[in-house]
């Protein structure tokens, strides 16, 4: 493996993010080739964390744009400070300036509210721009985003064109709620992050919950691996595994017995029918059987 990629993987691990070769290589290529990185996968596997960790590894600012349906240019790029503008107009009423002059005054830098995309473009050093859950925005916004990613510049009618001096490293995440356009996909490098393997998840738990009892870590990880294979309304992600690990440690549980498991199901299952189903399973077969099933399958 090339030294730089190994170094990135190692640095990410140092920052507490256990990852594999695929992720490290994709991150390395995103930085080197200066292409955006599109990360897809089920919820809770650590897609957003890649961007956060990358910012720490590169020792730079993380600029985050959280997408939602209806997100428009004003909220993503810039907005004028309307109250300030109105006040300024009012105060300058008798100053004798022409309308054109006053207009030039109020549409200037000091009345401009920078939103994430503009901040990323105007950053004084290369930042990491995280566009989170881009599938929640709509097609119009996606088209606008594509333009920004392609040109690395935006046009503000009243001010002019703003070009990026230090192109940000862009990471996009998607939960696949909506099909993203081909154009956007082709512009990006693609990474699919899936639920981790037993070994990987175990090492994540050991890293993030230091001091956890070895056997407990193994048991709960195997249990979750088994649970994931079942048909659930909301499959637990790695975030849930870690919550559960913390909860069990806080309860001073040294092993995963039936009672503790049932009590803490709410940490990993967020849907009532899932909780009922698992509770029945544990009562019928016992938590240890589920642990064994999770460990042995595959």
């Amino acid at each position: 493996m090339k030294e730089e990629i190994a170094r990135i993987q190692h640095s990410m691990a140092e920052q507490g993010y256990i990852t594999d070769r695929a992720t490290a290589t994709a991150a390395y290529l995103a930085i080197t080739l200066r292409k955006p990185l599109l990360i897809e996968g089920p919820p809770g596997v650590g897609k957003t964390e890649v961007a956060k960790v990358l910012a720490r590894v590169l020792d730079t600012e993380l600029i985050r744009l959280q997408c939602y349906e209806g997100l428009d240019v004003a909220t993503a790029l810039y907005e004028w400070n309307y109250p300030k503008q109105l006040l300024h107009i009012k105060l300058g009423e008798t100053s004798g300036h022409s309308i054109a002059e006053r207009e030039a005054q109020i549409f200037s830098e000091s009345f401009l509210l920078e939103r994430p995309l503009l901040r990323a473009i105007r950053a004084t050093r290369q930042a990491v721009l995280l566009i989170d859950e881009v599938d929640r925005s709509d097609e119009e916004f996606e088209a606008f985003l594509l333009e920004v990613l392609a040109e690395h510049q935006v046009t503000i009618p009243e001010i002019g064109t703003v070009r990026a001096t230090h192109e940000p490293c862009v990471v996009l995440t998607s939960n696949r709620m909506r099909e993203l356009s081909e154009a956007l996909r082709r512009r990006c490098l693609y990474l699919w992050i899936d639920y981790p393997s037993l070994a990987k998840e175990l090492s994540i738990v050991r890293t993030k919950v230091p001091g956890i009892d070895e056997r407990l870590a193994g048991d709960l990880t195997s249990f979750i691996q088994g649970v994931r294979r079942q048909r659930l309304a909301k499959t637990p992600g790695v975030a849930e595994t870690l919550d559960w690990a913390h909860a069990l440690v806080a309860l001073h549980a040294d092993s995963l017995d039936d009672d503790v498991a049932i009590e803490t199901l709410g940490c990993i299952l967020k849907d009532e029918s899932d909780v009922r189903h698992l509770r029945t399973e544990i009562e019928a077969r016992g938590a240890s059987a589920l642990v064994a099933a999770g460990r042995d399958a595959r």
Partner: protein
Amino acid sequence: MDVTPATSIDAVRALAATDVGDRDDVYFALRPVFVTRREDLEPFDVAFDEWWSVARRALGETSAERKKSRTNPSVIAPTDEPKTAATSTYLTRWASSLSETEDDETVPIAAPSTRDAAGTKDFQHYDDADLRGLEEAAARIVRRLQSRRSRRWRIARRGARLDARRIVRLALASGGDPIRLVRRERKRRRTKLVVVCDVSGSMDLYSRFLLQVLYALQHAFARVETFAFSTRLVRITDALAGDTYREALDALGRASDGGWSGGTKIGESLESLRVGWPRLFDRRTAVIVLSDGWDTGDPEVLGSALREMGRRAGRIIWLNPLLGSPSYQPLTRGMQAALPHVDVFAPAHDLASLERLAAHLSF
């Protein structure tokens, strides 16, 4: 997988950044460049395997040196045994087996995407494993149909919010006093759905899939009314409103009380729908009829029922699973009578055809 010249350039640049002697390095470097979606992952693996062995031979290395060190899911070959149709319909089987428990809950889910990359496996060939993954896929597709609803703003005289931008501009003329207030409201696309599903014997192969779709639609859209028919029409909106798909099927089984077998009377059923629920149909309503058009009733009745319905409804969409077969011609009298009054005539035999439904639902 789309490969453009730009992709090739990126591929070369990616290779420049890696150690070309190491198979895994090359694999992990090329994959993010060529793959654009999860479904591309397996075809890429296959293609890379082939390419690598050729490249190796060209470089004079033996194939024994190929390392299998990467940990990727192996390609799962799709099974192709068509499910033999039972004599009774899917729903009657469910009605009679309400106490059956499925004890194979821990069987791994083969999501349609791993078995059927482009969503083109015909539903009549689906086996139990396919069907289990289908619920999630159907929900996902329907959510995408739903997301055509817009939350953007547009100017409106009595909107709930103020449009600050315009107000400031206009205030310039009045010395900073915001005299003219401009309001805005959210744009709303208000498509209503009326879904009518043929559950008679001839549709049995597709019933299992279509009911999943109906269930997903019911839970995704705000305004849906769903009906099922074979010889007579039954409203199943409430039955489908169950919290889980299984509950919905239970309720459907109970609602059927013997109505799901025997012949098909499409015209009579549609007419009873039009007459029984007249308020359902207005300009914003999309009517979706799911049927293969095999009608044992009077085609005249079918034609006139659709014509009258089309007068009030915004759009009539007829989805026919048989259209999935390239040799199918809508030659039955029922289909012939119906077609002139139908706005959209489209297939509904696999996931891909469902996705294309999105375009027809915004009007």
